[in-house]
C-alpha cells in the first residue's frame, strides 16, 4: 500500500462509520414502534407519537390489543410509540410536561380525564365534530361525556371505566358468618356486617391497606356518596361540601377501621386482596381492578367463590375512574391522531382494550359478549345507573392542587383517625 492510499481509506472509514451511526439511530427510532411490524417508510412528522405508562401487565396487553386493532383498520398510520418507563403516571406527566414546554407535544398521551386536565391547561384543542361526532355523543352516557370536556369543549376521549364503588367479598366467609351481602343497604350496614363476621368467624372482616392514603380516600368518597347521596357528593367536589356530611362519612370509616387487619399499615393493596382470595378476609372495598387478580387465580371463580355488590348505599351510582387520550394543540400528526382517537371512541376499539384491562367500555352500545361475566354484569350496572359521578382519588373530580390537599388530609387521618379535624382539612382543601 502506498502512502497515498491512507487518507482515502480514512475517509472511507469515516463515511462508513457515520452511515452506520445514522442507520443505528434510524434503527432505534424504528425499534421504538413496539408492535409496529414493518418498520419501513418512516415519514418524519406524520408518525403518531403515543405516550403511555402501561409498560407491563394487563395495561400493556390492553394497549397492545388496541393498537393492533387500530392498525388493522388504518394500516397506513405509523407509530412512534414510546411507553414511558417506570410505569408511574407522575413520571409520564413529567415527560409530557417537558415536551410541551419544549413546544414538541406528543400526538396524545394517557391521562385521567376530568379535572386532571387542569395540569396542562391551554395545551388541548377542541375535537368536537372531528372526533366527538354525533355517534359518540349519543353513545357516551352523561357522566363520562362530561369528563371528556375541559371548559365546555371536548378535548379527550375516555377509553375505559374502572368502577370505584364496589364491595368484593369471599362467598365462603360470608356464608360461614351468615351475612347476606345483598341485604346491606347503607355504609353503616357494612360496619354491622363486619361485627357479625368478627364474632362468627376467624377471618378479618374488612381487608384494607393503610400504608398509603389512596385506598382510604376511595373508601371515604364511596361512603360519602352512600351517606350524603349524589347531591351531597357533588356539593363536596364543587367545593361547597357540608362539613357535617364529610365528618360523618369519615366517622363511618373510623368505625370500619376497627375491622381492618391489625397490620394494615404494613401491607400493600395486593396483600390485602390476597387475604380475600385465600379466605382470610371477608370484604374488600376497591376499584374493579381487584377482580383482575381473582380472574387470574385458579379455583377462585366469580359467583361461586367471590362476588361483588355495589357498595351499600350507592346503588344507582357508578363511581368513575377512567383513562383517556386527549388531543394536544400543535399536534405533530393531526390526521393520524384524530383517526386514532376516533378508534378509541369506537365500540370495537374499547372492547378490545377492556377485554385485557378488566374495565368496561364507556360506550353504552358496546357489544360486551366477548368480555368476562363479571365485566358484563358491571356493564349492565353501568347502563342502568342513574348517575356516573367522577372519583376524587383518581383525579377526575378535583384539580391536581385540591387533590394533593385531600391526599395530605388523609395522610394525617391515617395517623390519628381524627374525623373532625380531617373534615375541616377536606373542606379547606378547596380554598
Amino acid at each position, binding site marked *: 500500500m502506498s502512502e497515498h492510499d491512507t487518507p482515502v481509506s480514512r475517509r472511507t472509514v469515516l463515511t462508513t462509520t457515520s452511515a452506520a451511526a445514522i442507520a443505528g439511530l434510524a434503527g432505534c427510532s424504528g425499534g421504538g414502534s413496539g408492535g409496529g411490524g414493518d418498520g419501513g417508510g418512516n415519514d418524519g412528522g406524520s408518525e403518531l407519537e403515543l405516550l403511555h405508562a402501561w409498560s407491563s401487565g394487563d395495561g400493556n396487553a390492553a394497549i397492545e390489543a388496541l393498537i393492533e386493532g387500530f392498525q388493522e383498520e388504518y394500516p397506513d398510520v405509523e407509530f412512534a410509540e414510546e411507553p414511558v418507563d417506570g410505569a408511574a403516571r407522575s413520571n409520564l406527566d413529567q415527560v409530557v410536561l417537558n415536551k410541551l414546554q419544549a413546544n414538541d407535544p406528543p400526538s396524545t398521551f394517557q391521562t385521567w380525564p376530568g379535572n386532571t386536565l387542569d395540569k396542562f391547561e391551554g395545551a388541548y384543542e377542541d375535537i368536537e365534530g372531528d372526533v366527538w361526532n354525533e355517534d359518540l355523543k349519543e353513545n357516551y352516557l352523561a357522566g363520562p361525556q362530561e369528563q371528556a370536556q375541559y371548559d365546555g369543549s371536548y378535548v379527550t376521549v375516555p377509553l375505559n371505566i374502572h368502577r370505584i364503588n364496589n364491595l368484593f367479598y369471599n362467598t365462603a366467609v360470608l356464608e360461614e358468618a351468615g351475612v347476606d351481602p345483598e341485604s346491606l343497604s347503607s355504609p353503616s350496614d357494612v360496619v354491622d356486617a363486619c361485627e357479625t363476621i368478627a364474632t362468627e368467624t376467624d377471618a378479618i372482616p374488612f381487608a384494607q391497606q393503610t400504608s398509603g392514603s389512596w385506598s382510604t380516600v376511595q373508601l371515604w368518597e364511596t361512603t360519602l356518596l352512600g351517606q350524603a347521596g349524589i347531591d351531597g357528593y357533588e356539593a363536596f367536589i364543587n367545593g361547597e361540601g357540608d362539613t357535617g356530611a364529610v365528618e360523618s362519612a369519615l366517622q363511618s370509616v373510623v368505625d370500619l377501621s376497627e375491622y381492618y387487619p391489625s397490620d394494615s399499615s*404494613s401491607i400493600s393493596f395486593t396483600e390485602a386482596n390476597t387475604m380475600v382470595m385465600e379466605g382470610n378476609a371477608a370484604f374488600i372495598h376497591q376499584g374493579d381492578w381487584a377482580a383482575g387478580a381473582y380472574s387470574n387465580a385458579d379455583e377462585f371463580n366469580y359467583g361461586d367463590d367471590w362476588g361483588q355488590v355495589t357498595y351499600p348505599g350507592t346503588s344507582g351510582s357508578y363511581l368513575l375512574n377512567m383513562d383517556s387520550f386527549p388531543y394536544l394543540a400543535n399536534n405533530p400528526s393531526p390526521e393520524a391522531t384524530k383517526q386514532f382517537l376516533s378508534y378509541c371512541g369506537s365500540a370495537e376499539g374499547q372492547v378490545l382494550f377492556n377485554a385485557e384491562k378488566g374495565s368496561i367500555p364507556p360506550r353504552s352500545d358496546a357489544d360486551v359478549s366477548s368480555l368476562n361475566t363479571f365485566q358484563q354484569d358491571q356493564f349492565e350496572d353501568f347502563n342502568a345507573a342513574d348517575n356516573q359521578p367522577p372519583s376524587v382519588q383518581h383525579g377526575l373530580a378535583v384539580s391536581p392542587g385540591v387533590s394533593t390537599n385531600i*391526599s*395530605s388530609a388523609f395522610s394525617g387521618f391515617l395517623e*390519628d383517625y381524627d374525623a373532625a379535624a380531617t373534615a375541616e382539612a377536606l373542606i379547606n382543601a378547596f380554598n
Partner: protein
Amino acid sequence: MRNPLTILRQRLAAHREVRADGGTATEAGSILDRDSVRSAPFWLPPFLLIGLFIYGAIIWNIVLSLTDFQGLGSPDYSALDIENYVIAFTGGTPSWSSLTVDPVWNAAWNTVVLMVSFSVVCLAVGLVMAILVDQEIRFENTFRTIYLLPMSLSFVVTAKFWLYMYNVETGLVNLILGAVGVGPIEIVQNPELKLAAVAFALIWQFSGYAMIVYLAGLRAIPTSHFEAARVDGASTIRMYWRVIIPQLRTATVSALVVLTVFSLKAFDFLFSMYGGYQPGPSADILATRMVREAYANGNWAYGSAIAVLLFIMALTIVAPYIYTQYQRGEL
C-alpha cells in the same frame, strides 16, 4: 504535527524578550508556562461542566424561586420577588394560585429532628462498633463487612424491608417487643413513632459507614498513645474518653457531613415506605414537600424556594466543615 499552543507560547514568549531588562524577567516566563495554564486541559473541562451543571443549576434554581412560575409555559424573569419565601414562612394565598398554601415549618422541623437524631445516634453507634471491632478480635473483616453491607442496599429495598420489620403481626420488631412483654404496637402509621421509626431504619443502614470512618481514625492513632495511657494507669473507659476519642475529631466531622447529607435525602425512603410523597404530617420532610409542590401541583417556583431552603440547611452543615479544613490547610 505542531501544537498550536506551542506556537502561541513561542510568540508570547518572544514578546517578553523584547522588554527583558535583567535576569529576573526570565523567572516569570510566559503566562502559558504557568502550571495552572499548562494543566488546563485536565482541570478545565470538569471545572466548566461542574460549574455549569452544579453551580449554574443552583443559581438558576435560586432565580427560579424568585419568579411566579407555575403550571405550563415558561418562567417570567422580569418580575422577581421574595413572595415564595414569605409564603413558605407564613403561609397564605400566593398571587400565582387560588389555593391557600401552608407554611413549611412542620416539614422543616421534621427535617431537623430527623437530621440531628439520625446523625448523632449513627455516629455514637458507629464509634462503639469501631472500638469493638478494633479489639483485634477474630473474623474482624467478616464483622466489618456485615456491618457495612446495609449501606450497599438502596433506600427502596430497605424501606420495604422495614415496612415488613415493623408489621404489627409478623414483624421482627414487634415479635421481640412481644417476647419482653411489650406490645404489639402500631409503628408505621403511629404519629408518635413514625419519624423515630424512619430514623431507626436509617441508623441501621448507615451506622456501618460511621464505623468504617472511625475504624480508619482509630488505626491512624499510634499504639504508643494506648500504651502510654495504660502505663499511666488509665482505665479503658478513661483511656478512650480522654486520649483516643479527642483524636477522632476529623473522622467525626467528615462522617457527620456525609451522614447529614444522607438524612436530607431520606425522600427515597419515605417515598417507598408510604407509597408516594404523602408520608403524613408527622413524617413529612422538606424533600417530600418540595416534590409534592413541584411535581403534583406544578408550583415550580414555590418548589424551587423549598429546594433553596433545603440547600441552605445543607450548607450550614457543610460550610463550617469546609472552612475549618481550609483554615487548617487541609484543603
